[in-house]
């Protein structure tokens, strides 16, 4: 226990050093992202640490969670709805209907030679009718005011609501993925989830009518005050003068601090729930399944449906984190979702922190995010020292200094391999 507290203390000292030497705004930015990363790694820990499910489609669930702020908080575009909203909905319902009709036929014609042609016929006809309804509607929607809108808009509700909704989105996606791919051998579940996450990103990039695709949605509403309003409020100016910071810095710190408080509340709730679940009979059952599936099955546990449950829960947590991330950035940029950053990095956090231990995942999230951000600064310094023998405008030296930005991947890959080799249980091992 004392060791854990000590490690967290070191972590906060490091952030404080950044605060003193770089700036407190940077320090708070790091803290906010650390908390979001911790929540993501808690989600992965639920899947991997509790149940041994190997999900490398985290990016997809984070991204689909990030869709929630757009759909919940942006104002609806009534003209676009008039132009084709209803038609898109009809097309989607028709698509879902075709899918269910196909699965129904698949089950009905179990031992029949008619099965392949019937399924093909349903799917091909369904596809063309779907495209016939869907395409003109999308064209109409995307035509309306494409520089600002070009999508259906959202519901215009408070953005905080989008956090749980993001979790629901991710849970729904995870349920679909889990229904079809759980039961595959572990590394094939991994490849399937990786494929699905790429598909989700492709859809988000190309279906402009949902959230403007690669045109991005910017200026999402905030759950906290705007700096500019604070700087004009007499009370705030008075307050910042009494503690002696200039108004601009104070307002930026205040806003980031508000985010930190909101994020901490979410982190504590999720952590508390995770701990409760892990220590409950349910958690013991999950670990029993993880350690010996055959024995658990013999004891009458339904392994596949337990796996589905834990897969959905873990993905929902990732979705919440995704919605929080988009809220923090106030924008949704589908091109920013990259698997190295949103899947592998989270894995490094879980492994380094200690898989199976919730506190470990939080610590891992903090440490790895901190290094992810600071490696560039450190890398630049190291390169500077290493190449100090060369003259200022030596091309090799310039090349190496420019490459410092790519030290991130190298360092984190190295950390992952070293931890797996020498301390595979992680910093805070499972009890």
């Amino acid at each position, binding site marked *: 226990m004392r060791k854990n507290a000590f490690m967290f203390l070191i972590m906060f000292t490091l952030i404080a050093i950044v605060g003193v030497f770089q700036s407190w705004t940077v320090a708070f930015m790091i803290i906010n992202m650390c908390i979001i990363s911790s929540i993501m790694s808690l989600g992965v820990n639920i899947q991997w640490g509790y149940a041994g499910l190997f999900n490398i489609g985290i990016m997809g669930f984070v991204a689909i969670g990030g869709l929630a702020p757009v759909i919940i908080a942006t104002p609806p575009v009534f003209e676009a709805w008039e132009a084709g909203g209803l038609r898109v909905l009809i097309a989607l319902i028709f698509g879902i209907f075709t899918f269910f009709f196909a699965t129904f036929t698949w089950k009905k014609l179990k031992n029949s030679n008619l099965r392949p042609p019937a399924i093909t016929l349903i799917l091909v006809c369904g596809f063309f009718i779907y495209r016939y309804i869907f395409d003109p509607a999308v064209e109409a929607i995307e035509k309306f005011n494409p520089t600002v809108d070009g999508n259906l808009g959202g519901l215009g509700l408070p953005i905080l609501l989008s956090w749980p909704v993001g979790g629901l989105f991710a849970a729904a996606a995870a349920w679909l993925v889990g229904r079809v791919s759980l039961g*595959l051998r572990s590394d094939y579940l991994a490849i399937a989830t990786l*494929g699905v996450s790429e598909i989700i990103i492709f859809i988000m990039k190309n279906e402009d009518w949902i959230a403007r695709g690669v045109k991005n949605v910017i200026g999402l509403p905030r759950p906290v005050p705007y700096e500019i309003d604070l700087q004009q409020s007499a009370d705030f100016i008075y307050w910042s003068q009494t503690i002696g910071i200039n108004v601009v810095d104070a307002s930026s710190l205040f806003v980031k601090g508000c985010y930190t408080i909101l994020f901490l509340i979410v982190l504590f709730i999720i952590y508390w729930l995770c701990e409760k679940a892990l220590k409950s009979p349910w958690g013991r059952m999950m670990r029993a399944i993880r350690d010996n599936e055959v024995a658990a099955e013999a004891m009458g546990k339904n392994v596949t449906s337990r796996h589905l449950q834990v897969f959905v829960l873990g993905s929902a947590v990732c979705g919440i984190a995704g919605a929080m991330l988009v809220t923090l950035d106030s924008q949704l940029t589908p091109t920013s979702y990259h698997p190295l950053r949103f899947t592998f990095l989270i894995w490094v956090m879980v*492994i380094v922190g200690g898989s199976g231990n919730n506190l470990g995942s939080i610590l891992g999230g903090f440490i790895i995010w901190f290094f992810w951000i600071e490696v560039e600064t450190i890398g630049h310094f190291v390169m500077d020292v290493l190449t100090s023998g060369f003259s200022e405008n030596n091309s090799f030296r310039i090349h190496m200094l420019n*490459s410092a930005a*790519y030290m991130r991947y190298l360092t984190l890959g190295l950390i992952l391999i070293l931890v797996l080799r020498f301390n595979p249980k992680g910093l805070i091992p499972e009890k």
Partner: protein
Amino acid sequence: MDYLNAITALLNYVVIPAASYGSQLAFGALGVTIIYGILRFSNFAGGETMAWGAMFTLLFTGLFQSLGISIKPLPTAILALPLSIIVTVSLILITDRTVYRFYRKKKIDTSILVIVSFGVAMIMNGITRIMVGPSSRNFFDGERFFIKARDFKNSTGLAEGLSLKVSQGITIISAIIFVSLLFWFLYKTKTGKSMRAYSDNEDLALLSGINPEKVVSIAWIIATSLLVIGGTLYGLDKGFKPYVYYMLLLPSFAAAILGGLGNPLGAIAGGFVIAFSEITITYAFKKVFVYLLPENLEPTGLVQLISTDYKFVVSYSILILVLLFRPTGIFKGKSVV
């Protein structure tokens, strides 16, 4: 005449690009499948190995160009390729000794090996970017076309042109050569037979006195060579970009699983199936139909099933469908359930 035009259009826009892309995927899928057959884990560093191969070829090509060595009209990269293979294979063998062997000896769970291969992939990706930067580079030199579209039109009198790029030609030819070599090795030589035996039944192979470390090393050498060749060919064809090889990894996995993991013949078939479906499903068939149908039936739209933006989605979807309905692949491979 119109039929000939339609066929030419199909050849030019679907068959030739798909055949060369399919060959590139086949190399990737073979690299993945061989490692899976012998070491029994999905190597996620495969894409980065391709990137390394292309990168070293690019660097050696630059070296040769500055020395004035060339084999015009063929690209200098062919000369650089053997050196690139040697360098990449040595580096990968060192990686195997320092990283993977430890876990192999401990007989650790496959998932951990997969995570380790992510770590390796991240390090390799970092090194690629540090060495050549993230920008796109072209290292193709020499003659660009075997058949030029305009020459084809002039000599045949057709309205449609047919072009065959040198890079595409080389890709297809080298696929034939190296795949034949691979099968000769696997089926005719003693070492190849011992590898197949090891892949089929590890315990039995060990009993009959096969040295596992030797088999593993040879698997790495062959898989890496194939990945280097595939990576270089892809780079020659489309230009070298460090991040693009990650995108190539998933279709390669898809091809390997589609053909049955651990089955080299399946990997090749899988590569071509994936490539042809990607290109056929996203190709706008309007041109072909304009030639084939009478004027009053001509299509108004593009006659495209799915927009080209979704090219990669096609292969991911095939991958998932195969995993669902036929987890052992078309040709019986190792079960993935």
